[in-house]
């Protein structure tokens, strides 16, 4: 009787063999992966170097002005500057810079790949059908799974963290860019064509500018997704605020965990509001 509750066949999946293949591939191409790794590490380090050269009060002043400009309210400027000040008060300023450099490097590469991909997909309907399930998979795959190949190919450290961040955060940039372009009013596109635009003129003078609000939302989402990878990435050796949280979990230190976690939240909120604010204010300028 119990037989019917059992699955009748189970294949003998040789995971060792597959893993071996992947490792072998990584080892055989180590030259390539090493150069990618050193390039990514250099990118993260140089962003961190730049951030390190900005004194804390200058950074807070920048946040203050940007928030004020973006949301057109003095109060927002003071609030977001104050939140940044709190991160500094708890001695997390340098860790925040480390986190920020990995996030920014990841977002930079995600956009570098994602935006052109989105444009390409919008232009070819068939490509859209092929790519959509891949994007779905990228978004729904548990994020920890990305860490394994990242480590195999790039070892522990910030390079792997950037790669994992890129894969996870790239999806909204691709999706919303292609959506934005496909949603441009058909008559506006026809008008562009009717005046003899080349495909490139049509893209850069009509389609992209018209899709800009949606594309900007995609960029904002990419940034937020990258922020959500901060703690996960610390498991493969990304330093910064995420690592603080990880240490606090391992040692069961409640306050340390919440303080570092709070700093991640503050950073995410500030980045979100600043980017969103800029785009909204652009829209309101038009209206």
């Amino acid at each position, binding site marked *: 009787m119990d037989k019917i509750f059992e699955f009748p066949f189970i294949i003998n999946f040789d995971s060792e063999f597959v893993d071996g293949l992947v490792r072998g591939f990584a080892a055989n191409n180590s030259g390539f992966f090493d150069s990618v790794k050193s390039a990514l590490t250099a990118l993260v380090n140089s962003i961190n170097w730049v951030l390190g050269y900005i004194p804390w009060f200058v950074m807070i002043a920048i946040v203050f002005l940007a928030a004020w400009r973006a949301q057109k309210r003095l109060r927002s400027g003071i609030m977001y500057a104050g939140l940044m000040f709190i991160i500094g008060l708890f001695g997390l300023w340098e860790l925040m810079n480390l986190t920020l450099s990995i996030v920014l490097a990841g977002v930079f590469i995600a956009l570098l790949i994602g935006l052109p991909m989105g444009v390409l997909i919008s232009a070819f309907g068939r490509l859209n059908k092929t790519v959509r399930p891949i994007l779905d998979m990228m978004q729904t795959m548990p994020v920890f799974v990305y860490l394994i190949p990242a480590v195999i190919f790039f070892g522990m450290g910030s390079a792997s963290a950037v790669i994992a961040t890129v894969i996870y955060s790239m999806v909204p940039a691709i999706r919303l860019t292609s959506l934005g372009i496909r949603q441009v009013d058909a008559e506006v596109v026809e008008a562009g064509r009717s005046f*003899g635009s080349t495909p490139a003129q049509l893209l850069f003078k009509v389609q992209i500018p018209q899709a800009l609000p949606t594309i900007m939302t995609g960029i904002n989402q990419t940034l937020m997704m990258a922020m959500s990878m901060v703690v996960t990435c610390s498991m493969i050796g990304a330093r910064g605020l995420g690592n603080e949280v990880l240490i606090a979990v391992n040692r069961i230190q409640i306050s340390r965990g919440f303080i570092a976690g709070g700093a991640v939240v503050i950073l995410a909120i500030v980045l979100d509001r600043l980017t969103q604010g800029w785009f909204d204010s652009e829209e309101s300028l038009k209206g």
Partner: protein
Amino acid sequence: MRDISDDKDFIIEMQNVSKLYGIRREEAFSMLRKGADKEEVHKKTGVVTALYDVNLKVPRGKIFVIIGLSGSGKSTIVRSFNRLNRPTRGKVLFDGVNIVDMSKKKMREFRREKIAMVFQSFGLMSHRNVLGNVAYGLEVKGIKKQEREAKALEAIELVGLEGLDESSIDSLSGGMRQRVGLARALATDPEVLLMDEPFSALDPLVRDDMQFELLSIQRKLEKTVIFITHDIDEAFKLGDTVAIVRDGRLVQVGTPEEMNANPADEYVERFIESADKAKVMTARNIMIKPKGMVRLKDSVDRALRTMRRHGLSSVFVVDSKLEVKGVISLTEALRAKRKGLKIADVFERDVNIVEPDILVKDLMPMAIDSAYPITIVDKKGRLKGIVTKASVLSCLMMHSNEEQEEDNTHI
């Protein structure tokens, strides 16, 4: 139709143009050749027939109107002229050159130099201001900024939008937006202007203005205009030649007079009859926008300036809520200026104020008595438009003529 043998009189010619959507097109063609209609073809083969075997010639420098119901294929025809829609079969000759199999590069040049289009929902780019939109066609042609902006400004002036070149598209009304669309099309100085139901998204009053504007611009520049509409009144008002399409086929081509005299079939006849709906005209139908008005608080100089600018002999006086208070004439304004009086001291309070739904024949007594135009206001007393004496009289005369004709037929 008149037979004009000299082909220089025609700028565009369509020869056996068909447009079919679907896979089994060959099969569909042979069915259509045997006289099947488009429903039959669609049921049998799944092919959609947008156009079948259309032949027409567009006279140079005239307004050519294509009229049909929605789905009749009129938009497909107009888009064949600049190949936004490539015909499945047939030739489209522009000055003798077949544009159907032009290379992409040649096509771009053709679109940049020879032909421009105005769209039903305007097709304007909201990320550019008026000037940026109007200059677009010149920009893709690679004309330098200074030159293209100068030309764009000329076009903006031509359509009566001077001073609005820096405005954003979102801040404009529908009528103004379509003026931008028209200016954009005129800016490249094309030979042919394609207009795909350009005024059907506008409200009737604005539509009349725009039709008038288009006519005067066309007469001035003598461009060939191909105009699509579903409104027979509009077609007969604008068209030097009118073509009626139905179910993807051309039914009749001719001047409005020819069509009125000999409709090709019952379909055309019914279409034409629908034009005759204006039996009961109201003030709304014949009112126009007042060219100038002044506020009670404005200076007398301002009133004089307004009159001079628009060439008027009187302007309406409104309060800050646009409620009509009266009218001030040129003589009174000049007297006030001499004696240092204000508008409030001299303006005429006794004007004829009516609501837009009043019948034109009821306006007759007022039109005869009053020295000023009749004022049309909404329920809140705000100025909506004016009706001039001349338009009341001409409207009534037209009607009495029609009635007489009808009486004759009864005898």
